[in-house]
């Protein structure tokens, strides 16, 4: 046992020295997470803000003005007035505006009858954005309509009003519906996948390619020691990257961490082991840096971005994609992190996901050990 620890120590120190002298691992382990979190955090936002919108009032009345006044004060819209529908359409074609809001010339009289209509034309090229604009607009208008009716002493259910119940929606866990809040936890998953699988995919293959393993094999070193000496330093590097991400999430993007920090760190450690195991497994099987790099990209990073529920809810994707998504360990960690950050400790979800990750950790480590045999056959 003493020998085991001594050899493990020697190999780990060697690995740490190599990391410290090779700027590329530091780049991937520490600098890349920061760059990614800044790019994704500031650059990628699924929120729609400052939507340019052309407003066409065919009959300019105080009521219409009042109804549409909500647009001006909103952070979501930046309305501009168009004198005619023709002009507005022109603006939409040139994509100077993303939407046209039009009120008819008989709006006032229809409004009194409870039959007022507002036309909304959306630029449908970005359908997600278009849907969001539609939702925002109707939410905003119905709010204004409600207050207007209230002010005029008419209630919605007085028989003469709009005649329907008004939906008052509230978003739990992400009250402001701020996409950074759910993107940042997802981003941590991506970064952990990248750091874990990518770094280790290279290092085992590198030893095979440079022939350093052949000399190492003919020594008392065991394969467990070799693999552990790869995991420990990169685990530390990955955890450092994780803490940077957590700090950025808290202080740059003000994402709340509603669950326990301990559980967050534990589950992240578990996922990091899964991710490192995946990299080691790829690396030990291929024994080629180029190949394992490509495989790591295709089986870990890309699916983690697309299929883990980072951007799209897995329940709304086609069955095949959903199945693939459910095979990915990243999906489970994604669910854990989103829950921990935004919803708090939920033992059912967390335990189930942790169990899944544990299975993956054992599986990948098993494959890595299986394929790192001390022979060249």
């Amino acid at each position, binding site marked *: 046992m003493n020998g085991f620890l001594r050899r493990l120590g020697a190999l780990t120190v060697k690995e740490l020295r190599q990391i410290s002298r090779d700027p590329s691992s530091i780049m991937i382990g520490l600098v890349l997470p920061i760059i990614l979190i800044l790019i994704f955090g500031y650059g990628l936002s699924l929120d729609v803000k400052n939507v340019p919108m052309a407003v066409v009032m065919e009959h300019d009345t105080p009521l219409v003005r009042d109804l549409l006044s909500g647009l001006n004060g909103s952070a979501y819209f930046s309305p501009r007035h168009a004198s005619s529908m023709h002009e507005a359409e022109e603006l939409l074609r040139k994509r100077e505006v993303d939407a046209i809001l039009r009120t008819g010339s008989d709006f006032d009289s229809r409004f009194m009858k409870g039959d007022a209509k507002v036309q909304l034309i959306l630029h449908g090229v970005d359908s997600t954005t278009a849907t969001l604009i539609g939702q925002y607009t109707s939410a905003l208008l119905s709010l204004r309509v409600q207050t207007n009716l209230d002010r005029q002493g008419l209630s919605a259910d007085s028989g003469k009003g709009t005649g329907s119940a008004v939906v008052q929606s509230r978003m739990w866990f992400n009250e402001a519906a701020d996409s950074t809040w759910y993107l940042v936890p997802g981003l941590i998953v991506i970064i952990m996948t990248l750091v874990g699988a990518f770094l280790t995919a290279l290092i085992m293959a590198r030893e095979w390619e440079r*022939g350093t393993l*052949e000399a190492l094999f*003919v*020594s008392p070193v065991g394969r467990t020691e070799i693999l552990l000496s790869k995991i420990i330093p990169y685990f530390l590097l990955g955890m450092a990257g994780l803490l940077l991400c957590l700090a950025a999430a808290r202080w740059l993007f003000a994402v709340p961490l509603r669950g326990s920090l301990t559980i967050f760190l534990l589950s992240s450690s578990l996922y990091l082991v899964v991710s490192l195991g995946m990299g080691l497994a790829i690396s030990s099987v291929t024994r080629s840096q180029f190949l394992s790099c490509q495989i790591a990209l295709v089986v870990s990073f890309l699916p983690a971005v697309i299929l883990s529920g980072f951007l799209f809810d897995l329940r709304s994707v086609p069955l095949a994609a959903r199945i693939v998504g459910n095979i990915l360990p990243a999906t489970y960690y994604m669910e854990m992190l989103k829950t921990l950050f935004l919803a708090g400790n939920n033992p059912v979800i967390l335990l189930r996901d942790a169990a899944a990750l544990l299975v993956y950790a054992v599986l990948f480590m098993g494959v890595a050990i299986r394929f790192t045999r001390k022979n060249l056959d």
Partner: protein
Amino acid sequence: MTTERTNAAGQPVHSLTDRTSLVVSAHDAGKIFREKKTSVTALCSLSLDVPAGSMTAFVGPDGAGKTTFLRMICGLLAPTSGTLLVLGLNVADHAAEIQSRISYMPQRFGLYEDLSVMENMNLYADLHGIPGPARKERFARLLDMTDLARFTARPAGKLSGGMKQKLALACTLVRSPELLLLDEPSVGVDPLSRRELWAIITKMVQEEHLSVIVSTAYMDEAERCDNVVVMHEGSILAQGSPEELRKLTQGLCHATSVPVGMKARHLQAWLLDQPSLIMDAVPEGSHVRFVLPPEHGRNGIPQELISPCSGNIHLKVEDCTGVTPRLEDSFMFLLRHRQASAESSGAEEKILSPSQDTTIPDALPDVKTAPFSPRTEDGQQNSKEAVIEVRDLVRKFGSFTAVASTSFSVYRGEVFGLLGPNGAGKTTTFRMLCGLLPATSGYLRVAGENLRTAAAQARTRVGYVSQKFSLYGNLSVLENLHFFGGVYGIGPFALRRRIREVLEEFDLTGHEHDISGAMPGGFKQRLSMAVGMLHKPEILFLDEPTSGIDPLARRVFWRRITTLSDEGTTIIITTHFMEEAEYCDRMLIQDAGQVLALGTPDDVRRQGGSAPTMEEAFIHIVESSRAARAAAKEGA
């Protein structure tokens, strides 16, 4: 220590682990590599006992199975048949224990290049559990022997080739192993470093009574060992002490002086072209050394060589003297003998190794070259035209001067050797000549142009064969030839004809559809040459083409060079085999970027203190220049 062990079958095994018993004992050990549909026989039922406390050398042509056997002894490859005992343990069952008791230096020792010399050594010392005080003492000794004490903080990647190899040996020797395995420890290492490397090995063997097995392509290295095992196509051709092996050619070795006006390589080529009368011939000193077959040689030099029926070359009895045999003579004798018997009983051979195509060493086919015809005086005059002119060539990398004001010329049809220790500036000079690297200053003309700036057309006048295999490994022989033919702009019909010619010339016919990356080293080297010669260049650059190649393959290689040169091709070549400089018309020795010697082999030998061999002359020249430089530095 246990004296009795049982192997997997429960039979007792003689397993005395003290240093008087056997360190390796193989019984019908075989190794077949199976890949998809093909199987390659690397070793066929090999039986061998290696006694402890001795030095054993494995020699043999490329693909003989030396590396495979060493890896099997380490437990890195499992035998597919037979048994193999190492230190009395069966490798199949006790690989881990064997691996912790032996030390192994692979051909490509994986030093961690970003770790320093000391960190590399500490890593291996930690892995072997060398305690502090013992380590301190051991390291001091190793650093002293390897002369690396000054460089302990330098990253291993920044060491020269020779120093890297010495560091690898030091890492292998962090403790005294029960068995030391060295796989071609001196490949690609210059003669000086090679001598130092062997000094370390010999010293360790003497002081610690190590058991050593070393595989090597250098016969002089094998000659230092107690026991030599000649391997060929996965089986043992002969074994014995160097003394015993040398006796095979006792009385058959002769040397003749070279007649005035003739080149040593021409006389050698003429001798080699008579395979029934000559087993081997090689230029040496100002002589040509040759070995006669026993059926002719017992009665002195055969009449046919003295009064030839055709041609105007012949030997004069008074020029010939009998010389004492060397291991290389017997090695060549054994391989030629084997070749002859294989030809007479080809069918039997096929049964022995079913996949002969892949294990056959490259050296065996006959050289298909035009029979030698002596050169006319006209030819000699033509050769005075300089095709390469270099004046005051300088190359600096930052503040480091890799090549310092070098001047020389190479004449048409010459074989010009570029020699020097690792890091002397040979490769830099070479790259500048080929136009791969711009010169810092100086005048440089190759075929009348500076290749760096010349039009693409000018480049087709030179061919370049790099040291590393630089063809497309996943293309077949034919596909590679077609591709490079296209690159050189040879028309489709001319290319087809030319490909047929080079396939014939470099003995690749029948292998057109082999995937080039999967071929043995010698084949790859011939294919590289074939590609380099596709466009019939006037000038051929060869960067260490014979590195790690056995003597037989090197004879074939140089015979080909002789023919190419006779056809008017100018050849510039680098090599670490100093005796190969004897083939050159003129040569240049560089060290630390400076020209130390320039002239014919005779000139250089004279300059090197009239040393009998080129290697001694080389070492003398380089060492005296280094001593002079050191003295100058101290004076300053």
